[in-house]
C-alpha cells in the first residue's frame, strides 16, 4: 500500500495529514482494522449522532477464542491469563474457562480452543479438573469438528508420567475431530520461556485472516486491564529467619520445622491459604560428591550447582541425554524400556556412579535443569503476626538403594539458623481461602497439612469470626509428633477452635488416620456441611486426600441413606460450590 494513504483532500490540516500518514502508512491490516473499529466505537461511546460517514464494516465482531485451563497450584491459570491479554491485543474476544467449571457439552461449536493443562499426582489431572476431564474422556464429549485447537502441557520431568494430562487432552481433542493448528509443547518446571514462545506462535497461527479491504475489529471498551487492581508483591523477596524450632520431640523419628520469617518493610500481602515459594540451595556435600563421581573440579560449576541447578532429579530426559554421551548400558535400559523402573528412587549421582562415562563441566551441566522453588503453605495470618510469615516444613529424609537421601529444600530449611536470609516469593491461592466470618469451617490437615489451618485459626480469631472452626489433625505419635499441641489447647480454651479431633497412627496396633476420625464423627460432619460449612483438606495428596474424599462420600451415603452415585454427587456439588477446597501435595 502507498506510504501516504491519506488524501490531501482529507478534512485535516496538512501537518495532521503527515502525522496520520506516518501512523496509518506502515500499519498492518490488523492494526488498521483495529483503528477503524476503535474510531467507530469511540463515536458510539460518545453517542455521536448517527453519521453516514461511518463505515458499514465497523459492525463486524471480534473473533472469539476459548482458553481452557486445568490447574492445581495456579501456574496454568496464570499462563491462561497471559494468553487472554495478548489475544485481546490481537483482536480476539477471549473467554477464560477453568476446567473445574467446564460443562463439556459447551465445547461444541467452539471455533478456537487453547488448552493449558497441568499434570498432578502420578499422572493425574489437577483435583478440581477431574470431573470435567472424565467427561471429556467419556462419550459425554461432543464432536469437535470445525474446532481449531492447541495444547500447552505443564509438568515436571522428575515424574515418570511427564505431562500425561496435557498429552491425553491433546490426543482426545484430535480424536473428537478437532483440528490441531499448533503442536503441543510439554513444559518442565521452568515453563516461563517455552510457554511464552508457544503462546506467541500459536496466537499468530490462530490470528483472524484479515484482508486489506476494510475489515473492522470491534474494540471492547469494557475490557479491563488485568493489572488494574493493586496486585500483591509477587516478586522474589529476601526474608530473615527470626525463629526456627523443630516441633517434634527428640524421641520422634521425624523433624518438622516451624520457621518464622520477617521481611524488611512489609511482608508480601498474603492471605490465609496462600503459600510461599522457597528458593533453596543444594547441600554442598552432595554437590561435591557428585562432582567427584564425575571427576570434575570446577569452582564456578560447583557454585552454580549449589545455588541454582537441580542436581538431584533423575528423569528419563536425563537418561536420554546421558545415553547420548555414548553410555551403552543406559542406552540399553532406554531401549529395553526398563529405564523407567531403574530411575525409581534414584538420583543423578547414582547414574553417574553406576554407569561412568567421560564427562566435562558442560556435559554434566547438560544433565541438570534449573533448581525450582518449593512451595510451603503459610502457617500464619498477618492479622496476628504482622509483617512476618511462618512456615511448617517437614525434613524429607529417606533411604533408597542403600543411600540416605535428603530432600533439597526441606533439608535446606531444616538447616537454617536464626538470622539466616532466604529468598521467597508469594504464591497466592484463591482456591484455598476462608469463607465469610459467619460460615463454619472444617479443616482436615494431618502432618504439615495443618500449616494453613494455623493461619486460618489465627485469622478467624483476630477477626472475631462468628463461624465455628473444627480441626482434624493426625501424625505418628501423640507424645512426640503433636505439632503445635499447646497452641491448639489455647485455641480451644479461648474459642479460636471449636472442636479438634486427632488421629495418631503409631500409638496403637492398628493404624488410625484422620479419615477414621471423620468416619466416627460423620453425623456431626454432615450436619455442619448441611449448615453451610466449608470443608478444607491439606497435606498428602496421594494417600490422604483421596481417602478423605472417599470417606466423605461414604459419610453422605451412610448418614443420608444415599446411593453411592448420589453421595458422590453431593460431594461433587460441594466442590462446584467451592465448599470442598483442597491444597494437597
Amino acid at each position: 500500500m502507498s506510504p501516504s494513504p491519506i488524501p490531501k483532500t482529507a478534512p485535516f490540516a496538512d501537518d495532521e495529514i503527515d502525522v496520520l500518514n506516518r501512523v496509518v502508512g506502515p500499519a498492518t491490516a490488523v492494526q488498521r482494522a483495529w483503528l477503524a473499529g476503535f474510531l467507530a466505537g469511540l463515536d458510539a461511546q460518545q453517542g455521536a449522532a448517527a453519521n453516514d460517514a461511518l463505515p458499514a464494516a465497523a459492525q463486524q465482531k471480534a473473533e472469539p477464542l476459548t482458553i481452557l485451563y486445568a490447574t492445581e497450584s495456579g501456574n496454568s491459570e496464570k499462563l491462561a491469563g497471559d494468553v487472554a491479554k495478548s489475544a485481546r491485543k490481537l483482536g480476539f474476544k477471549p473467554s477464560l474457562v477453568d476446567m473445574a467449571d467446564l460443562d463439556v457439552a459447551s465445547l461444541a461449536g467452539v471455533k478456537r480452543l487453547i488448552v493449558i493443562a497441568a499434570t498432578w499426582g502420578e499422572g493425574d489431572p489437577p483435583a478440581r479438573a477431574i470431573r470435567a476431564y472424565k467427561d471429556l474422556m467419556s462419550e459425554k464429549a461432543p464432536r469437535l469438528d470445525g474446532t481449531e485447537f492447541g495444547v500447552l502441557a505443564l509438568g515436571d520431568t522428575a515424574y515418570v508420567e511427564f505431562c500425561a494430562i496435557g498429552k491425553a487432552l491433546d490426543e482426545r481433542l484430535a480424536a473428537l475431530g478437532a483440528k490441531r493448528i499448533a503442536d503441543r509443547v510439554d513444559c518442565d518446571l521452568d515453563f516461563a520461556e517455552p510457554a511464552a514462545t508457544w503462546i506467541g506462535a500459536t496466537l499468530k497461527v490462530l490470528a483472524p485472516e484479515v484482508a486489506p479491504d476494510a475489515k473492522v475489529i470491534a474494540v471492547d471498551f469494557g475490557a479491563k486491564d488485568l493489572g488494574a487492581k493493586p496486585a500483591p508483591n509477587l516478586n522474589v523477596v529476601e526474608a530473615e529467619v527470626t525463629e526456627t524450632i523443630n516441633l517434634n520431640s527428640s524421641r520422634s523419628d521425624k523433624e518438622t520445622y516451624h520457621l518464622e520469617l520477617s521481611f524488611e518493610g512489609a511482608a508480601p500481602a498474603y492471605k490465609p491459604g496462600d503459600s510461599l515459594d522457597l528458593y533453596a540451595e543444594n547441600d554442598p556435600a552432595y554437590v561435591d560428591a557428585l562432582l567427584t563421581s564425575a571427576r570434575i573440579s570446577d569452582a564456578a560449576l560447583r557454585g552454580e550447582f549449589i545455588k541454582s541447578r537441580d542436581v538431584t532429579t533423575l528423569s528419563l530426559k536425563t537418561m536420554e541425554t546421558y545415553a547420548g554421551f555414548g553410555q551403552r548400558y543406559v542406552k540399553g535400559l532406554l531401549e529395553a524400556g526398563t529405564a523407567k523402573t531403574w530411575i525409581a528412587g534414584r538420583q543423578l549421582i547414582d547414574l553417574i556412579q553406576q554407569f561412568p562415562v567421560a564427562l566435562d563441566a558442560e556435559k554434566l551441566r547438560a544433565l541438570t535443569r534449573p533448581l525450582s522453588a518449593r512451595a510451603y503453605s503459610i502457617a500464619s495470618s498477618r492479622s496476628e503476626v504482622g509483617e512476618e510469615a511462618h512456615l511448617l516444613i517437614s525434613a524429607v529424609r529417606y533411604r533408597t538403594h542403600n543411600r540416605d537421601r535428603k530432600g533439597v529444600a526441606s533439608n535446606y530449611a531444616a538447616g537454617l539458623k536464626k538470622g539466616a536470609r532466604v529468598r521467597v516469593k508469594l504464591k497466592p491461592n484463591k482456591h484455598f481461602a476462608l469463607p465469610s466470618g459467619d460460615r463454619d469451617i472444617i479443616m482436615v490437615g494431618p502432618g504439615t497439612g495443618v500449616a494453613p489451618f494455623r493461619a486460618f485459626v489465627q485469622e478467624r480469631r483476630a477477626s472475631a469470626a462468628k463461624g465455628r472452626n473444627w480441626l482434624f489433625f493426625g501424625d505418628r505419635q501423640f507424645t512426640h509428633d503433636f505439632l503445635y499441641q499447646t497452641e491448639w489447647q489455647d485455641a480451644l480454651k479461648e474459642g479460636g477452635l471449636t472442636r479438634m479431633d486427632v488421629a495418631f497412627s503409631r500409638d496403637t496396633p492398628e493404624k488410625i488416620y484422620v479419615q477414621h476420625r471423620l468416619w466416627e464423627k460423620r453425623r456431626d460432619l454432615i450436619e455442619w456441611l448441611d449448615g453451610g460449612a466449608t470443608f478444607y483438606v491439606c497435606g498428602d495428596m496421594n494417600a490422604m486426600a483421596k481417602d478423605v474424599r472417599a470417606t466423605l462420600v461414604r459419610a453422605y451415603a451412610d448418614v443420608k441413606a444415599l446411593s453411592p452415585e448420589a453421595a458422590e454427587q453431593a460431594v461433587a456439588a460441594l466442590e462446584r460450590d467451592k465448599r470442598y477446597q483442597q491444597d494437597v501435595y
Partner: protein
Amino acid sequence: MAELARNEYIKEASDYLRGTLAEGLTDEITGAIVEDDQQLVKFHGMYLQDDRDLRGERARKKLEKAFAFMLRVRISGGVLTTKQWRALDWVARVYGNGTMRATTRQTIQLHGVIKSNLKATLKAIDEQLLNTIAACGDVNRNVMSNPNPYQSKAHAVALELARGISDHLEPHTPAYREIWLDGEKIAGGEPEVVEPIYGKTYLPRKFKTVVAVPPSNDVDIFAHDLGFIAILDDNNDVTGWNVTVGGGMGMTHGEPDTYPRAADVMGFCATRDAIRVAEAVVTVQRDWGDRTNRKHARLKYTIEDRGLDAFRAEVEKRAGVKLAAAKPFTFTSTGDRYGWTEGENGKAHLTLYVENGRIKDTAGGAGMLTGLRKIAEIHKGDMRLTANQNVIVANIGGQERAAIEAIVKQYNLIQPASGLRRNSMACVALPTCGLALAESERYLPDLLTALDARLAAYGLSDDDIVIRMTGCPNGCARPYLAEIGLVGKGPGRYNLYLGAAHDGSRMSKLYAEDLEHDAIVATLDPVFGAYAKEREPDERFGEFVIRAEFVTRTRNGADFHANTGAKRAA
C-alpha cells in the same frame, strides 16, 4: 480439730473414686487428667507421670509435658500363670514403653501408657483375670507373700492367706469397671453398702500387708503396716501367725518427726482368725489414723502416738479375737536364692536375677524381656515375682528343664558373680518418678561396678552384703533396711546409711550426707577394708559396722534420727 488434708475432700466428693475420670478420658488434646482425678486414679492402680528426661525441651516445641501413665498390676503373692505373663509382656510392648518393671512389692508395673491407650490396656489385663484395682491409693495394697516354692506346703498356705486378705480388703466400688471396662454404671447407694470396710473416704493413707514364711524374710516384713509371720511346726506345717504392725519406710529430709519404722510384733493368731484380725487392724487405722497430715497418717505414727497396747486392745475388741503371745521365729535373710532349687513337691524352680527389676532387652546384655517370654511360651508351671525385684520360674517339670536352661543360656539370663550386686535393689526414680531427687535404677549398676572393684581388692567379692538405693527418702527400695543404704538428696548426691540387720529386723543409721559418686566409693572403701580385716567369723557387714563403731545402733522409730553421723574416723 485441725483442717483435714486436701485428699480427704477429694475422696469425699469423688462418689466412690469416680471423680471426673470418665470425662477426662474423652479429652484427646491433652495426655493429662485434672488434678483431683490424679489423686483418684491412684486408687485404680495408676499414676499420671511425665518423662522428666524430656521436660527441658517440651515447652519450646509447643508440646505439653510428655505425660503417660504408670500402671501397677494387682498380683497377690506375686504369682502369675505363664499365660498372664505373656499377656503382660504383650501389653508392655504394644502399649507400654517396651519394658516390664518387677517391683519391690512383687508385682509388675508398666510405664509409658498414654491416656488414649489406658482402656485398651486395662481391657487386655482384665482378659487375663488381672486388674490394677487398689494397687495404689489410700487402701490396702497388693498383699505380698513369700514366693519361695521350695517349701511348697507352707507357701501354699501363705499364698492362700495373702489372697484371702487381698480379696477381703479390696475396694467394692464399681467405679473401676464403669470407667475402664465400660461396665454398667451402678448408682452410688448407701456408703456402708458400697464400701463396708472403708466407707466414703477410705483410709487416711496407703496401707500395706505382707505374709512371710521363715526363715526367709524376703518380703521385709518389718517395713509394712501389717504382717503375718508363719509359725511352722517340725514338719513345716503352718500352726498360726505372728502379727506385726506399724512398719514403714517413708520420711522427708530435714523433717525429724517423719521417720522409717520397723514393725512391732503384736501377738499370735490362728489361721482362721487371720482375716478378721487384718480387717480390725485396717478399721482401727481407718478411725484412728491422722487425716489432717499425710506425712503423719501411716499406721506407724498411729501406733507411736497411741501405743502398741492400746492399739492391740482395740484390734482384739473389734476382731473379737484374743491374740496370744508372739511365738519365736528366726529369719536368716531378706535375699533371694538364685539359681536352681528343688521343692518338696519334687519340682524344680529357677530364680533369675533381674537388674533393679527392669525387665528389658539390653543390647549386648541380658535379653530379659524376650528370654522370659520364650520361657513363658514353653513353661507349664507358673512365674513368680519376688520382693527383691527378681523372677522365679516355678514348678518346672523334669522334661522342661533342659529347654529352659537352653533359653537361659541363649538370652544370657545369668546371676551376677558379685555378692553385693546379687543383694542390690534400686527404686525406679528418674525419669518417670515425679518425686525423685536423684537417679537410682539407672545409676546403681555403675556405682556397683566401682564398689565391686574395691570389694575385690579386699577379697569380699562373694560376700552377701545388702545394698539398696532410692532416689528420694520415700524408701521404695527399703534402703533403711539395707546394710548399705543410699538415699537421693539432690542430683548426683546421696545420703549414706549403714548398720541395718541382714535379716531385715533393724533399721540403719545415717552415716554420711550429700555424697557424690567418688565420695561414696571413697567413704565406703575404708569400711570395707576394716570389715575384711576385723570381722569375726560369719559376722555380717550390718552387724560389723555397729560393733566396730562406725555407726550407732538404731533402736526404733524416732531413734532413727538420733546420734547420726560417722562415729569412727575410718
